[in-house]
Structure formats: structure tokens, C-alpha cells
């Protein structure tokens, strides 16, 4: 007997559910099947765009035509999702059609405004956020919410507001995953947005790192104070959110801040937050890992670990500090972490020492 069947029977005994164990539906599709469908949908959309480009060449060169046809195609995609979205072919067809429409619409926007302007980025943000709300499809919502967040980031950059995008993405991501289970009824909307925001957050943090090189590309004036301190501001915001999440998780388990456990938890969180000001990105990766563990979400945990590895390797190439300084930072934090581990062994031993892969 499978475990979900046992769970169903337990719930049935409590009178919470009735009838047969339901089959797996779209929600429980494993993430890797969704990634496959997303990538394939994107390739399909690319060919559809080529098709439109070859047959209706004029459409791509006229602003009005591109915006108009793009909108029509997106509306068509909405109806495909609405009426055929439950079938595999319908969902996949809708995905490719919608991405084609988006490609046309965005190319129209770029023609209308200079692609480099606030207005272009901001319009894309509004357009993608709207699609996220409206389009009833998981993969579609992951992609559009990520693109919306990135477009907002670029719009803020054009306004010379640097560093705040990480905070916005991180706070949205944290709110969604902290309350995931209580929003379960609306999970069809919020869960994909939660994944989209985390993907965007990692992208923004990576952009912050490569900011120095990117700045060379499109800078026409002296870098502003905000621009120079973007990684610092981003880290500070994410670190604050990280502390808030730790506090919320302590509340969830009814642990007082001034209890021994509470003080150790906040102390460790502060320490890791401070480390992140030297080795950027650490706290972002740890935030993803922690929220993944707290909500029993292995995909998020994996993503957090992957990000941790990535940021750690990137640290080697950061130019602000010498290797000697970096080695001291890492060795020292490693030693502190091992010290915490030893203290845990002594004061909070694990009851069951077997089972290393629990």
C-alpha cells in the first residue's frame, strides 16, 4: 500500500474525506516533468514566432500590428487554457501560443519605446503581471511572474534605483512560502508565483555580482551612490527578511525569543547574515534552503543548496578582497559553524544517531 493511500484512509477515518483516493492531477506533477514541458513549450513557441516572422513579415515591423496581433494571440491562448487546459495537448498548445503572443507584444513594445527606457521595462512588468493573474496554467505562471519581477528590476535600474529589487523579490518569496499551506485554496495562483519569484531573485542576485561589468556596457554617466552600493543594499534587505523569517518560524513553534533556543537561533541567524555582507549571496541561498525545509519542499531545498554552491564558487572571483582575506573569512566562519555543531552535539544531542540520510 502506498503512503498516500494510508494517509487518505487515516483522513477517511477522521471523517475529513470521503470516496476513493483521487488520481494524481496537474498539481502533483513532478517538477522535472514541468521543466521538460516548459522547455519544450518554449522551443515550440520559438518556431511559431519564426513562422509568424516569415509569413507575416510586416507584423514584426509595425508597432501597432505587433501589439495588436500579440494581444489577439494571448487572448486566444487564454481561451485555449480555459477550455482545453485540462488536456495535455491543450495546455502545451496554449503555452506555446501564449509565448508566441508575448514575443510579438514585447517586440512591439520595444519598437514603440526605445528598448532601453523605463517605460519599456515597466510596460513589460505590467503586461507579465497581468498574464500571471489571468492565465490559468502553472508553468505559464512560473515563467511570467519571473519575467515580471525581472522587468520591474530593470525598470528600477533605469530609474537609478539599485539594490532594492532583491528585497522586493525576497519579501514576496518569503511571504508566499511562509504561508503556503494557509493559502492552499488559492495555491494555483500563489505557488507558481512563489517559484517564479525565487528564480527571479537568484537571477537578480547574479546580476548584482556581474553589475560591475554590465555597468561598463550601458553607463553614460558617473555611477550613482545607489549603483555603487547595490550589492550592499540588496544584501541588507535580504538579511532583514532572513531574520524576520527566522522569527516567524520560531513563533510558529511557540519558541520565545528570549528562551535559550530562541537566542541561539537568532544569534546564529545574525552571524550568517553578517557573513553575507562579505560573501554576497550566502543569505539568499540560506533563505531559500530554510524556507524549503520549513515547508517540506525538496525542490526549494535543492535550489537553495545549488545557489549556495554557486555563490561560494563566485566568491573566489570577487575582486574587492584579496584571496588571503577571503580565506580567513571562510575558515573563520567554518570554524564558528563547527563550533556551533559541537555545542549542538553537547546541549541538543540527536536522539537517533543512525539514519544519516533522514
Amino acid at each position, binding site marked *: 500500500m502506498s503512503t498516500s493511500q494510508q494517509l487518505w484512509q487515516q483522513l477517511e477515518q477522521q471523517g475529513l474525506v470521503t470516496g476513493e483516493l483521487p488520481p494524481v492531477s496537474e498539481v502533483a506533477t513532478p517538477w522535472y516533468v514541468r521543466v521538460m514541458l516548459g522547455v519544450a513549450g518554449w522551443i515550440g513557441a520559438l518556431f511559431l514566432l*519564426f513562422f509568424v516572422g516569415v509569413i507575416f513579415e510586416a507584423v514584426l515591423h509595425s508597432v501597432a500590428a505587433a501589439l495588436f496581433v500579440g494581444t489577439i494571440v494571448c487572448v486566444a491562448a487564454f481561451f485555449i487554457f480555459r477550455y482545453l487546459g485540462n488536456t495535455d495537448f491543450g495546455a502545451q498548445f496554449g503555452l506555446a501560443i501564449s509565448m508566441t503572443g508575448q514575443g510579438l507584444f514585447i517586440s512591439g513594445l520595444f519598437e514603440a519605446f526605445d528598448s532601453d527606457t523605463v517605460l519599456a521595462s515597466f510596460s513589460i512588468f505590467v503586461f507579465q503581471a497581468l498574464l500571471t493573474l489571468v492565465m490559468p496554467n502553472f508553468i505559464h505562471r512560473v515563467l511570467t511572474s519571473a519575467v515580471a519581477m525581472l522587468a520591474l528590476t530593470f525598470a528600477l535600474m533605469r530609474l537609478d534605483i539599485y539594490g532594492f529589487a532583491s528585497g522586493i523579490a525576497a519579501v514576496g518569496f518569503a511571504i508566499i512560502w511562509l504561508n503556503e499551506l494557509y493559502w492552499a485554496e488559492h495555491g494555483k495562483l500563489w505557488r507558481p508565483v512563489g517559484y517564479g519569484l525565487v528564480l527571479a531573485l537568484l537571477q537578480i542576485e547574479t546580476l548584482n555580482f556581474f553589475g560591475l561589468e554590465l555597468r561598463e556596457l550601458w553607463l553614460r554617466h558617473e555611477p550613482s551612490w545607489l549603483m555603487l552600493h547595490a550589492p550592499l543594499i540588496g544584501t541588507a534587505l535580504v538579511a532583514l527578511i532572513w531574520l524576520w523569517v527566522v522569527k516567524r518560524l520560531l513563533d510558529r513553534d511557540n519558541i520565545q525569543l528570549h528562551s535559550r533556543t530562541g537566542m541561539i537561533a537568532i544569534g546564529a541567524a545574525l552571524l550568517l547574515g553578517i557573513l553575507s555582507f562579505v560573501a554576497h549571496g550566502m543569505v539568499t541561498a540560506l533563505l531559500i534552503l530554510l524556507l524549503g525545509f520549513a515547508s517540506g519542499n525538496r525542490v526549494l531545498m535543492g535550489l537553495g543548496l545549488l545557489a549556495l554552491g554557486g555563490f561560494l564558487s563566485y566568491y573566489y572571483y570577487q575582486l574587492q578582497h584579496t584571496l588571503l582575506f577571503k580565506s580567513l573569512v*571562510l575558515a573563520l566562519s567554518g570554524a564558528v559553524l563547527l563550533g556551533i555543531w559541537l555545542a549542538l552535539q553537547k546541549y541538543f544531542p540527536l536522539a537517533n544517531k543512525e539514519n544519516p540520510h533522514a
Partner: protein
Amino acid sequence: MSEHRTVILDWIAQGRLQANALPTALRLAGLIPSRTDWLNFFHRLTLWLGAIFFAIGVIFFFAYNWQAMGRYAKFGLVEILIIASLVICWRLDFKSVATQALLLFASLLIGALFALVGQTYQTGADTYELFTVWSMAILPWVVVSYFAPLWLFWLGLINMAALLYYQTFGGWFGWLFNTEQILWALFILNTAALCIWETVAYLGVTWLRERWSVRILAVASGSLITILATWAILDFDENDKITALLIYPVWMVVAYIVYRHVTKDVFVLAGGVLSAIITITVGLSKLMLEHDDGGAFLFIAIVIIGLSAAGGFWLKSVVNEERA
């Protein structure tokens, strides 16, 4: 734990479970981590992050090549750390998590030690030799660790050694022409590792059955043969590339049989579906897109959408059958 999560969310989405019954369902499924779960998580997190940060700190230190520190002090430092970790390992329970962390720590430091030898005595050795010697030296620890991630790290070192070997002997121009040879070498290496890993796990070595490590190998092997096959399709006129087109279907069929019927793993099957879609797309494009024909683009797009929808349907049915 993770499976219950999606299942419960699924039931709520289907309207089969009322949202107000959620707390009870969560408690029954053990979905909110308990105090023990949290403790376990923190033990692991501090141990692994601590060991890895510390070891990388030491590696960075030697990479900096600090002149103020004499060579004997440097050798002394790294050797003392290695010996100390081995002594602690000796005294600890083998197969414990702490032993595994210490073995990983010592294995990382061995790399620093060899790099230090090369740096100090200017041995003139190539970098591929560093990775070869490093992987040879840590092999005994990897064997006794009973720990899949350490095996993966070891395979990573071998991959680096192979890559650097071909880079060194290919020369600057060779590097350009040798890319195909490198891809083949890495494909053979990772496929062999995958076959051995799956066989040993199938024969009953339980600690190798953890899926995520072996999935990384499957992704490496599968992506490499997909790249080789699509490349062969694009350069079909050159006869020497035909091998990839012969090997690719064999790989796909064997993977299907193994991961559908022997060790069911939908992750690898999903990768196979994606690989097939990409290869078919490249094949059709090569055949049909000789002239700027709009209809061909539309046809290929529909084929991609149809194949992926069918693939998704099939994968979901395999998952359902797994859970039924």
C-alpha cells in the same frame, strides 16, 4: 515527506479535502517539521557548511601563496589538518555523518597539498596531473566512506582531469578540433560510471540507491550523447560522425528499459523525452528548413507541441501507476 506535501495540496485543489481540515491533515502526514526534524537539520547544516567553508578557506589560503609564510610552515599546516581529521575519523564511529564530513574535508585538503607541492617545487606538472594524482590519492577514503556525494566529487575530479588532459594535448588549434573527442571521452567516462553505479545499487548496495546523485550522472551522460547526436545530424555529410547516430538510439532504448522497467525513475525518463524532442527538432529543421519556408516552421512547432504533450501525458501516467 515531500510526496505527502504535493498530494495534500492536490487534494485541496481538487476540492476533495476541505481547507479547514488542513491542520489535521498536515499533522497526520507529519508535514510541518517537528522539533527533532529541525534539530537534525541544524546538526547537518552546521556540520557540512562548517567542514566545507573551512576546507575552502584553507584552499584559498594556499592559492594566495602568501610569501611571509615559510614553506615548512605551509606544509606543516595542511598536513596537520589532514592528519588531525583522519585521527578523529579513526576514533569516531565509521559510517557516521561526522566521519563522512571529515573524509570530505580531508579529501579537499589533499588537493591543497598537491597544489602546494607544485607551487613550491615548480614541478612543471600539467594541471591534469594534479587532478589525476588528487583523485588517486583520495580513492581509498572515498571507498571506505560509504557516501554517495563523495563518490560524485571523486568523479568530478576525474572529469576535470580528462578535460584538462585533452585541452593540454590538443594544443590551441587542437582544442578547437578536439571538442568532439573531449565530448566522447566524457561521455564514455560518465556512462561507464552510471552503469557501474546502477548495477551496484541494483545488486543491493542500499546507500547507493539515493536517487539524486545518480541522476546527476544520468544527466551528464544523456546530455553529452544528445549534443553528439544533434551535432552529427547538423554535419551529416561528414561520415565520421555517424557513430553518434548509432549510439544515441541504443542509449535511449537502454535507458527506457532500465528506467521504465528495472529501476523506475521518471526524472531520467523526462530527460529522455526532452532529449528526443530536441533531437527530432534538429533533424526536422535540417531536413525541412533549407529554404525560408514558413510552413515548415509551423509544422515543426506543431510536432514539438504534440510530442511534448504526449510525453507529458505518458510521464504522468507512469507517475500515477507508481502511486496507485
